[in-house]
């Protein structure tokens, strides 16, 4: 059982989609741990399997065509993948909550805000209507909705995007979950609102001690918010490290490419760097490294053999034939 402080332990998770085009291995052998109170960032391009990983954790993969083909998701000592549907429903929202990318569509347009918030606590905490309502209004105040009392009975279309995302956060946190999964919570918002929402998540995390998994493709967000980072590519973990270390000493050519792609505001003349090519079609992966066709230091071996998952130090891993070399080049000392 989990005595080592791990809230969540994902072991060799594999989620496949059976499509007309063949089997798409959207998530293929992902493993990671998350300690209590820690924030984990998952970054990657679109289609790299970030969202599917997290939907798999609470078993919300659309089945069919999706299927969790194997692995374990140990949450507080229980394997969520083995639980009956009834039991997993009690965990969703109560102990693991999610925030979605698009606040414009993730609230039911026909339900008052208060009803949607109340549904959570009535369901999981057994609140009466009156209790649930009081709680809902308190949550709305917590996430900074002004005049929460009057606005609770509004419909979602009366709120702006940022406000709706606040409502989503209020909803997600209303049962004080142990784990909050935020799936690109700021992607659909404009920059000033992004900062507010991230600050809010940070503040609430500090106050409640919730662990957070933050999915994003914004490296800036990851740098400011997370303790650990996972870089995903083609359904695999390419690199895994403490945030500071990943940014300072990346041990994977893909991570390096991602970091180089971040525009540098001080360099006005320079061209924007981009990783050449497109993410691979995960339905038809060739043997060898999935990143090989786009990699700037590709060798013959990369096209032939699947790369090893190299341990660079205590908690820094990289999926590359030349992980140690890349790591040394960026100033790290491989263990």
């Amino acid at each position, binding site marked *: 059982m989990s005595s080592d402080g791990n809230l969540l332990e994902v072991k060799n998770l594999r989620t496949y989609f059976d499509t007309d085009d063949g089997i798409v291995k959207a998530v293929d052998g992902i493993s990671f741990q998350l300690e209590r109170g820690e924030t984990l960032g998952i970054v990657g391009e679109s289609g790299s399997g970030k969202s599917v990983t997290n939907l798999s954790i609470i078993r919300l993969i659309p089945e069919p065509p999706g299927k969790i083909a194997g692995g374990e998701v140990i949450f507080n000592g229980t394997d969520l993948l083995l639980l009956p549907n009834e039991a997993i429903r009690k965990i969703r929202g109560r102990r693991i909550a999610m925030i979605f*990318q698009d606040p414009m569509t993730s609230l039911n347009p026909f339900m008052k805000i208060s009803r949607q918030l109340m549904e959570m606590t009535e*369901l999981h905490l057994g609140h009466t209507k009156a209790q649930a309502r009081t709680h809902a209004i308190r949550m709305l105040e917590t996430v900074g909705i002004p005049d929460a009392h009057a606005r609770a009975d509004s419909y979602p279309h009366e709120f702006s995007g940022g406000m709706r995302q606040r409502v989503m956060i209020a909803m997600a946190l209303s049962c004080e979950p142990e784990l909050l999964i935020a799936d690109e919570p700021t992607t659909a918002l404009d920059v000033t609102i992004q900062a507010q929402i991230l600050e809010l998540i940070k503040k609430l995390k500090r106050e409640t001690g919730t662990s957070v998994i933050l999915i994003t493709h914004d490296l800036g967000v990851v740098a400011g918010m997370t303790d650990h980072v996972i870089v995903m590519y083609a359904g695999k973990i390419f690199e895994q490290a403490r945030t500071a270390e990943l940014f300072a000493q990346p041990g994977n050519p893909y991570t390096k490419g991602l970091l180089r792609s971040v525009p540098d505001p001080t360099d006005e003349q320079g061209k924007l760097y981009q990783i050449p090519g497109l993410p691979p079609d995960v339905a038809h992966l060739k043997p060898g490294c999935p990143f090989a066709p786009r990699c700037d230091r590709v060798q013959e071996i990369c096209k032939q053999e699947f790369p090893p998952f190299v341990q660079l130090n205590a908690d820094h891993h990289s999926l590359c034939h030349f992980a140690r070399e890349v790591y040394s080049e960026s100033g790290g000392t491989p263990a």
Partner: protein
Amino acid sequence: MSNENNPDHEDLVHIGPEMAVAEADVHPDEVGTFVRGTSLWRDAWRRLLKNKLAVVGMVVVIIVTIASIIGPTAIKAIFGFTPDFIPTGDVNATRSLPPFTGPNGQFTWTHPMGTDNAGRDQFARVLQGGQISLFVGILSTVVSLLIGVTYGAVSGYVGGRVDNMMMRIVDVLYSLPYVIVVIVLLSMFRSQTPRGQLILLFIALGSVSWLTMARIVRGQVLSLKNQEFVLAARATGVSNTRIIFKHLIPNTLGPVIVYATLTIPQIMLTEAFLSFLGFGVQAPIASWGSLASDGIQNIAIFPWQLIFPGVTMALTLFSLNFLGDGLRDALDPQMRTV
């Protein structure tokens, strides 16, 4: 300008949260509170009121409904006869009287629509027929709503093989010529009592009228269930049953209401048609169809016996259709800003 005397103003104001200041009709002590925006229903209601034809339709429907409900009782109280009262005595003096005419040819208010072939008051019978016709129309529509909405929503939400099977069943039922099915049902189980026959009619009409409703709702649910709010609801641990009934079905309400309003006249017409053929409502209970059927036998001599039930029915059906069209325009999802 005083906002307090301007009820419309509240509807028009919809300002952002940051500007949530007193703009609409608020009391001084409520300054700074949030202004209620327009709800979807209030929006739709306003659009409906702009549609003249729909408003006229709505008024006619309301008048006919109220008249049908209280009419026979009122006539009983004023003139002392029920719709199925056949006067005793000289039959020839009371049967088939023209409108506003008494037994001796004098003017009277007693029979504003004349009497029928047996001497029963035509006005009372038309009103009672309205009761039955509206009742059949509304009840069968409610049945079709209950079955159709649930069936369609479950089929659409569950999807996959279950959806396929459920919809093939609908297809099969669809392909049966339903008027013939209803006629076969009615003649197979022909009941001895008029009331029994009426119940049979409900069952027969209700059991075939939910098919389109099921298809409409399924289509709606199919497009709704992939929206993020359903995923969000599932992620908060809401059960599938609750998602279907609390989250999905309310979102399909617009098209459902429109279709239901258009189903009522359709069913009333079918009922009239069946009663006209003698399969539906039986005397002494009257419906507009059976009254028309009685009236057509004497159309050359006593045209009012057909005209009154016929015109009343046509007027009501027109009105219901106008109202339905108006509702469709008012609730049109394309015009709705969500």
